Structure formats: C-alpha cells, structure tokens
C-alpha cells in the first residue's frame, strides 16, 4: 500500500499541495484526477523522492522511499528517461545492470507486444512509442507499484489502445497502479479508485464501481459535481 499523509508542497509561497492524503492499494488502479494545476505530477514525484516535500509523509508498504523501494515502485513520467543516443537494447541493458528485479523475458515480451525494434534509438521514437518504452522500462521490473504520469496525453489512438490493453493484461498482474490524468473517458472502466484533486487538496476520493452502484453516477458526473458545483 502506498500511503500519502498530509502531503504539503510549496513552490515559493504557493502551496501546490496542501495536506493531500490518500492510499493506493496493490491490485488496484488508482486515478489522480485534477483538471488544472501541477498537483498530480508533483504528488507522483514526491512519492518517488524526486522533489522534496514541505510536510507530510509518504510510506510505501510502511517504508519511506529509499534505495530498496526503487525496486518496488516504478515511475513512468511523460518524458524520455533514457539517453536519446541509446538504442532500446542499450536502454534495457542499462536497466538490467542496475535493477536486481529486472525481468528481461517480460521486457522482450513487451517489446514484441508493442511491435518495437530493439535497435531503434530512443531519439527516433515517436511520442507514442516513447510512452510505450517508458511503460516497458517500468513494467519489466518486478515492481509492486507503478506510477504513471499522463500516460495517454498527446499520443496517437493506436498507441493508446495498446497501452490500455496492457492495463487489462497479465502484465499488470496484482500490481498497484497510480495514474494521473486530466481526461477520464478512455479509462473510465479501467480504474478502481478516483482521487479528485484541486487547488492542492483532495476534493473527493471514491471507488468507481461503488459510486455507480450506490449513486448511479459516472466518474464524469462526480467530477462535474465536484469541480463545477
């Protein structure tokens, strides 16, 4: 379980996160939604220790982030995280060098699934393929949690379909996933849990199926209620 408690983050005087708390469970897909602002990405970075926080705590299975938890959580940002001059093969080699839990079989499987050639250079990848490679780098580590920052933004429809397919496949297994997005449509049926963020606070946290069953509301319905009023 990833526990975020009272997370507060300031950029200068501006509070980007002001006491954000939520949990994300293993085996669930948790979606951080915010229609504007930088809170979502910052939250993921904070979980990964890529940005210092002003207050609060973040625990991954009860541990604060440390070198061992980097074998437990993978972060897939929306930018290239490998050197552009590397080939995909070299990038995978790099990962294999440093991660004990790197699973080369799965990496190869994903490569075939995404129909990518390992000789391609990172710099030559399209936006969609970059996202796939990022996903591959995360999924091929036997991590328990995967954090994805806007996996669908700005990429072509077929890449989206492929990525969506990954989400429903055995590749996710029983891992916990946190996705950030500002656009819910494509993945509404994929997610277990929604956390609505705005102005640095959690406006609402709910389980999607429960919401449908008990209140008959879609995620967008709830968003409309919460954000527009």
């Amino acid at each position, binding site marked *: 379980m990833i526990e975020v408690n009272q997370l507060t983050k300031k950029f200068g005087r501006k509070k980007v996160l002001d006491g954000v708390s939520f949990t994300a469970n293993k*085996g*669930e*897909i948790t979606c951080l939604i915010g229609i504007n602002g930088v809170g979502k990405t910052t939250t993921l970075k904070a979980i990964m220790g890529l940005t210092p926080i002003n207050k609060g705590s973040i625990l991954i299975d009860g541990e604060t982030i440390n070198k061992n938890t980097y074998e437990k959580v993978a972060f897939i940002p929306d930018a290239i995280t490998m050197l552009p001059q590397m080939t995909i093969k070299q990038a995978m080699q790099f990962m294999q060098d440093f991660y004990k839990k790197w699973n080369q079989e799965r990496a190869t499987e994903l490569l075939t699934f995404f129909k990518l050639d390992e000789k391609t250079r990172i710099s030559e990848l399209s936006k969609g393929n970059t996202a796939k490679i990022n996903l591959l780098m995360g999924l091929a580590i036997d991590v328990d949690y995967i954090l994805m920052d806007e996996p669908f933004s700005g990429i072509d429809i077929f890449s989206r379909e492929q990525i*969506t*397919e990954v*989400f*429903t*496949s*055995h590749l*996710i297994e029983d891992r916990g996933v946190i996705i950030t997005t500002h656009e819910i449509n494509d993945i*509404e*049926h*994929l*997610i*277990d849990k929604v956390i609505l963020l705005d102005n640095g606070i959690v406006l609402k946290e709910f389980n*999607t*199926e429960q919401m*449908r*069953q008990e209140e*008959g*509301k*879609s*995620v*967008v*319905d709830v968003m409309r209620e919460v954000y527009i009023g």
Partner: protein
Amino acid sequence: MNVTFNNRDPVYIQVVRYFKEQIANGNLMAGQEIPSRRELAAMLKINPNTAQKAYKEMEEQGLITTERNYPSKITTNENILHGVREELIVAAVDSFMQSIRPLNISIDELLHIVQEKYSQESSKEVL
C-alpha cells in the same frame, strides 16, 4: 466481442447482464467454457477487478460454475438457464410496457406493430 458499457451503472452488473444475454440468445451454451477473468478484462477493456466481481456475482447466481484449476463454465442447470431467458424477456417486456403504456394504445394495434417490426428487423438481419 464488442460491448459498450454505460458509465452510470456498475460495470460488473453490465457484464453479468451481457453474459445473460449471450445465454438467452444461445451464443453461450450450457457447459461451455468461458474466458478467464483476465481475458475477459482484456476483451472488454475493463478492470480485471471488475471482471472478477462479475464472475463472482454470476457464481452466486449459479450462472457459472468453477472447479479448482479449471476454467469456469456455463452452468448445465437447465432451470437456471431457462430462468435467465425468462428473466431477460420479462425484464425487456416490462421496460417496453413502461414506455408504451402512457401512449394508451390498444393491445391489438400494439401486437400488430410489434409483429411487423419484429419480422422487418429479422429479415434485415438475414440480409
């Protein structure tokens, strides 16, 4: 398999309903193996947890049976299968009745229209 789900009803209930339809129209036979939860989630592009919940619901309703280490199968219990067909028909007729009743149409006229429409749709399908 291409199913569109609406966003306001619980997805698992929609999945169960989809299975019932398939049983009712004979696409799924008694004792037929059905996809695993994971496969189903992938096919329907839904969360595997939801697929799991749907299967659990169907097991509870007796629609499918699962033996350890074997794929789930459609039940061979004729009563349940018939029940499903009847339940769907009755439910469909119920909702039809609900919308047609305020029109105050005579039963004969209604039956005539239904007959005509139904055969038209069927011939279309044939074509």
